[in-house]
């Protein structure tokens, strides 16, 4: 049963991730709050499962010429530095702090994206 639910969580997170909306932002809350997995494990599950999924979706998107290679490489350079810095420093940061940080991260990104969506929606309506 648990295995089945984990697969379901994966599908839900995968759909959102494949759309490029940030699968982790759905999958991690599902795994920690829904399945009561430890936060560190669900973070790792998200990262590891994202890799094969994104290989597949990147190929799918690349075939349709949806990926801007040069912009991607520019951002990858900076984001990799961030990822390495996080990997080195994470052991000095308490789990409690990380959990709250993730919460605030979700709240701020979620509300900003929601607001910009609403603004874009009304602008479109005005233009019509």
């Amino acid at each position, binding site marked *: 049963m648990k295995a089945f639910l*984990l*697969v*379901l969580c*994966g*599908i839900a997170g*995968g*759909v*959102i*991730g*494949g*759309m490029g*909306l*940030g*699968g*982790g*932002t*759905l999958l991690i*809350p599902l*795994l920690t709050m829904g399945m009561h*997995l430890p936060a*560190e*494990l669900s973070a*790792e*599950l998200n*990262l*590891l*499962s994202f890799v094969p*999924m*994104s290989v*597949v*979706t*990147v190929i*799918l998107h*690349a075939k349709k010429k*949806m990926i*801007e290679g040069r912009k*991607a490489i*520019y*951002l*990858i350079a*900076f*984001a*990799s530095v*961030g*990822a*390495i*810095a*996080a*990997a080195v420093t*994470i*052991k000095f*940061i308490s789990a409690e702090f990380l959990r*709250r*940080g993730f*919460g605030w*991260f*979700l709240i701020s*990104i*979620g509300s900003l994206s929601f607001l910009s*969506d609403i603004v874009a929606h009304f602008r479109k309506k005005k233009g019509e």
Partner: protein
Amino acid sequence: MVCSSVSRILRDRAVRFLRDFGIENRENGNSIFVAEHGEKENGKRNIRKLKRAVAGVAALIAGLANGFFGGGGGTLVVPTLRKLMDCEEKKSHATAIAVMLPVSMISGAAYLLRGVRDLWATLEVGSGVIVGGVIGAVMLRKVPKGFLTGLFYLVMIYAGIRFVRG
């Protein structure tokens, strides 16, 4: 674009005309045109440079967040591509996945090295994510953004509040 190139051609013609008739004054006439034109171009280039720099910082933060929280960096990369790098909406979603792929490999490897392991859970969640990912990738091209994404953002905010309150 067209306007500026037409005006540049006209200016060049005017400068050449003045020079041909011996009215050209390097200190005043010619240089004014050049300076004016150059300043405008410089301003545009500076804004582009600034945008690029901010995009780099945002990508750095995305990488940090992805490493610390184990995900979610992509949600920052999408608006960065769209607002700062003049990327079309659907393309920026697709490109964001390509950006997060190597970054997640780095962070994932770091988690593995620290010894967090659960093989079965990884396989179960992983297989679900692959199936869902293909569905999502096809949906991205077909389903218009709107209701679904709005709902997703609300879920995100709700989950965030739950995390903060503990």
